[in-house]
């Protein structure tokens, strides 16, 4: 009997269900495998591409996307989404740049940008938390408002001129020891705080609870509206931070700088295993998702013309999301 059980146990990993459970419980494993495969494909397609410089460049770009995808991860956990991140991020980089030649300098600019972002996040939070407007439409409207105000600010600040402060450029695009991107200085603390927030704090638990079952969360004494107001303020501050890093990285400041990152930020969180329906996911997967999208985007921009790049990008997002849904489906 023991021998029979042993053989059964030995072969248990052969069963598809075992694999499915593994993938469901540890999404980081298949994601990392996918990332490694992608890197191998890049190297095979263009031998000599993959080296320390390539890797540091990829990480440097992925950091911005990962911070923005952090906004989506947090809000998606509660069943929401934040579509104002790209506008808030662009606004933050731009406002900071306009303060460079002013008394107070870029430090004041960062302060103003963060304050404006916090205000936008507060309105988002009050709208979706207190008034129960759907977050999709709430943050969309807020995005339009922020974009409009950014444009107005742009016209007002034409005379004073603008420029990305040196300090931001150092953080955004600088390298330490030739290949360690400086923006990790921003990204690593953000990542640690977010992961700990989600895994170790009561606040993190409440985010999962609200997304999983809002009624059960309310009956358990969670004050959803307070949680959501804080959440959207955090999200907006993260977005503003990403905008500062991106303006330093690209050494430009414009009101549409971060717009191309909006949809990829949602895609990164989804590929990273966070459910858009709420209650399931985490930030570590999102980081790998952002890396995958960055490597993929960079690779496609080398080997394919722009139209095909978009087509392949979209197809891969659907494929990965479909594979995920298939694997994690409750069955």
């Amino acid at each position: 009997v023991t021998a029979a059980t042993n053989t059964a146990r030995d072969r248990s990993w052969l069963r598809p269900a075992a694999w499915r459970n593994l993938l469901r419980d540890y999404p980081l494993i298949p994601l990392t495998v996918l990332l490694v495969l992608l890197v191998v494909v890049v190297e095979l397609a263009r031998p000599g591409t993959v080296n320390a410089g390539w890797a540091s460049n990829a990480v440097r770009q992925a950091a911005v996307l990962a911070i923005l995808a952090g906004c989506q991860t947090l809000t998606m956990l509660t069943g929401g989404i934040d579509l104002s991140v790209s506008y808030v991020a662009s606004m933050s980089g731009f406002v900071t740049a306009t303060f460079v030649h002013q008394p107070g300098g870029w430090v004041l600019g960062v302060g103003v940008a963060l304050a404006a972002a916090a205000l936008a996040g507060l309105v988002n939070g009050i709208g979706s938390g207190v008034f129960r407007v759907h977050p999709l439409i709430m943050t969309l409207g807020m995005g339009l408002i922020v974009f409009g105000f950014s444009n107005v600010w742009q016209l007002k600040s034409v005379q004073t001129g603008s420029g990305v402060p040196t300090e931001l450029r150092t953080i955004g695009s600088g390298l330490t020891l030739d290949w360690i991107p400086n923006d990790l200085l921003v990204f690593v603390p953000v990542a640690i705080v977010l992961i700990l927030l989600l895994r170790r704090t009561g606040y993190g638990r409440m985010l999962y609870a609200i997304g999983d079952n809002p009624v059960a969360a309310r009956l358990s004494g969670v004050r959803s509206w307070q949680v959501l107001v804080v959440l959207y303020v955090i999200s907006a501050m993260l977005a503003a931070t990403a905008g500062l890093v991106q303006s330093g990285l690209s050494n430009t400041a414009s009101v549409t700088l971060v717009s191309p990152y909006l949809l990829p930020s949602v895609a990164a969180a989804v590929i990273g295993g966070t459910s858009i329906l709420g209650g399931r996911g985490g930030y570590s997967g999102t980081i790998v998702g952002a890396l995958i999208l960055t490597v993929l985007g960079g690779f496609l921009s080398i080997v394919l013309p722009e139209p095909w790049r978009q087509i392949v990008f979209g197809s891969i997002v659907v494929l990965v999301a479909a594979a995920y849904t298939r694997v994690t489906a409750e069955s």
Partner: protein
Amino acid sequence: MTTTAASADRRRLVGVYSDIVRTFARNNAWTLGLLAFLAVLLVFTKYVNQNYSLTSLANSATSVLPLALAAVAQAVAVIAGGIDLSVSSQMALTSCVAATLMASNPGDATAVAIVLLVLLLGLLLGAINGALVVLTRVPDIIVTLATYFVWAGFALLVRPAPGGSAAVWLKDLVVGSLGIAVLPKAAIVLVIIVGVIWIPLSRSRFGLSLYALGSNRLAAFRSGVPINRTKVLSYMITGLMAAFAGLSLTASTGIGSPVPEPTYVLISIGAVVLGGVSLAGGIGGVFGPIVAVIVLQLIRDDMTFMRVDSNYGLVAQGFILIGVLMVGSFLQMRRSRR
């Protein structure tokens, strides 16, 4: 005796009518409120611009038509419990295909064939969206987010740069007015498209399935609604409406532009919600969203008349969107609590 009986009859009849009116008012409270808002806005517009008249309103119809059709497209998807983020790139693709084919094959008769072909293309794009949603079981918002890129990529393949041309009759169809100046052709086109396609569909068995699917998927399934087929069909209608929107873009601008206008998706979703369609699905129609598009356009026009920086128009649109929704959902919360 007879007089009292007759007056009782009349009273009963009046009661029936007032019941009908009351039910109608209750069922369409949001749209009626929106119409009242539109009326106030029109009075305000007349106040800020003395020269404003019905003719000016008619003149803006041509530029509003693509957005109104996009809102109708979005409304169908949302009513069925989905959402279509790819509407603007479907518009770009269909518009590019139409403009390119019409430039290389001039002639009125071929243009008719091209229009039909483009409409079929819209149905196909929608069918692919719907099939992906059904087959992969990935949330609609993610699938259409991905296909947004795919359609935009194909649009760039068809037309690397804006260009092409539109048949003369197609331009004539949407530009200008019919007879008296207050009846813009664009509005007639919109009424015909909605009247011929949406109204019969929504009154049919399929329309019932559509609303059932949107309001409660499980209940719809258990009542025997073919939920997968309904879902795919809903996206096909969305695709068809997006193709109409793309054609109207080509007709009003005379060219096809491969880059999807990013604000189209935002404004279409905003207009749908402002028009009384619930994002949760199953509630609303297409009339409200069309009124909402007109309201949003009028706000921007007012900003121009008041010589305000046009960017404040964007800000105002956002605030109106948010403000109206906050008030609306606040009222709804109070009603449901009672």
